[in-house]
């Protein structure tokens, strides 16, 4: 699959690649960005669709914490 990228964006990424040792090529940089965007999207999806079993603490617990944070003066 080929994807066309706007030349202005390519120039911008090329500058970054040239000025740093972090990426060997524009392609590597684009891949890295896309991997992280996809991971972030997946994480956001997971957060939105979290099941009660997966939740570390319940909504009630969260409310209790909010009350404690209010007591500490951090929340109104």
């Amino acid at each position, binding site marked *: 699959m080929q994807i066309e990228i706007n030349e202005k964006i390519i120039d*911008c990424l090329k*500058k*970054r690649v040239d*000025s740093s*040792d*972090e990426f060997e090529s524009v392609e590597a*940089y684009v891949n*890295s*960005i896309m991997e*992280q*965007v996809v*991971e*972030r999207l997946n*994480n956001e999806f997971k957060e939105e669709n979290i099941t009660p079993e997966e939740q*570390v*603490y319940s909504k009630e*617990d*969260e409310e209790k*914490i909010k009350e*404690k*944070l209010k*007591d*500490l*003066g*951090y*929340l109104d």
Partner: protein
Amino acid sequence: MVDESKKRFNVIAVVLDGVRFDRIKLLPNFRKLCNKGTLFSNMITYAPYTIASLHSIFTGAYGSENGVDNYYGSLSYKQKEFKTITEYLKEQDYFTFGDLINEVVTPRQGFSKLVLQGEDYDFCGEHKKMLNEAKSVNKDNKSFFLFLHYSPVHNSLVKNVIKQFTDFDKKYFENKEGNLKKYDSYIKKADKYLESIYNEIKKLNLFENSLIVFFSDHGSSIGEKIGERVYGSFCYDHTIKIFALFISPKGFPVKNVNKVTRGIDIMPTILDIFGIDGEFSNKINGKSLMPLISDEEKEGRIAFSETGGLFGPYPSPKKPNVKAIRTQNWKLIYNLTPNTKELYNLVDDPFEINNLAGKGFQEEKKLWGILKSKSQIDLIPPRI
């Protein structure tokens, strides 16, 4: 394994909540105490707010490992995978007790007895009573671990800053001199408290058979950086720099160790001097401070800190949005939102004003590598 010669030492841990080292070091009672033990004057906290800081100090582990890496984090504390200093000492048959400002602030695991501080709590009076109770337990040849939380500085900051100003209030940020004056007045009271506690410990003859640790959990802003009126939003030195002063008849000479150390090093130091092998010691990120006292360890350590304000930006408040790596002379800060880096040469620029990121310094690459290894950086690399 317990070292028999040391196991009967009591531990008195006193946290001075929100006390900046650069201010308390100017005051007489603190200075007097510094002449009695080993001061770690360049200590860095994992988090510039009490909840995550105390959990990291009690477990010797970063919040990114023990689960408490945000203001809501105490419910996510991985208590089956980590053990607190209180639990370790309780296993050694110590009587473990202390007081808490609030149930979510300090890990409660391992405490035999806890007192919850209420309104109008008389810190000097109550803490003296607790010292006396400790002494009576000690008379029966039982060692104790006493944790005292001095929180009036926090309370004053809430009343006079948090409730009065926003994080962007011009009136506050343009009045640094006035803010400092007020802050110093709170610190003076903390210094008086130290005198009072010190005298009580002396009166009770507890110096001879106790290890006493005075430390702070985070610093505070007096308006240095717009966007943070007190602490918890950023990772600049005025909030992440803390101290620890160890006083004991054995092992802690009068000395100031100025090399970088971490709050997470306090707990493994106590385990080390008591010869306690931690069941979960592989989970401890900190290291004993003893090799720094003997100069066996020559270099300062590398400290990792992170934070996330209660009002964001993303992914805070549920996850940290600012991460930092601090060495003896340099600091790299990574702001996940808005995706920027800051690099400071702390020798030339101790107030972190001149951002050197992107200017070709080797340290940036080196510290960025360390930061990525300490914490998952899952956002797009910083903009050009």
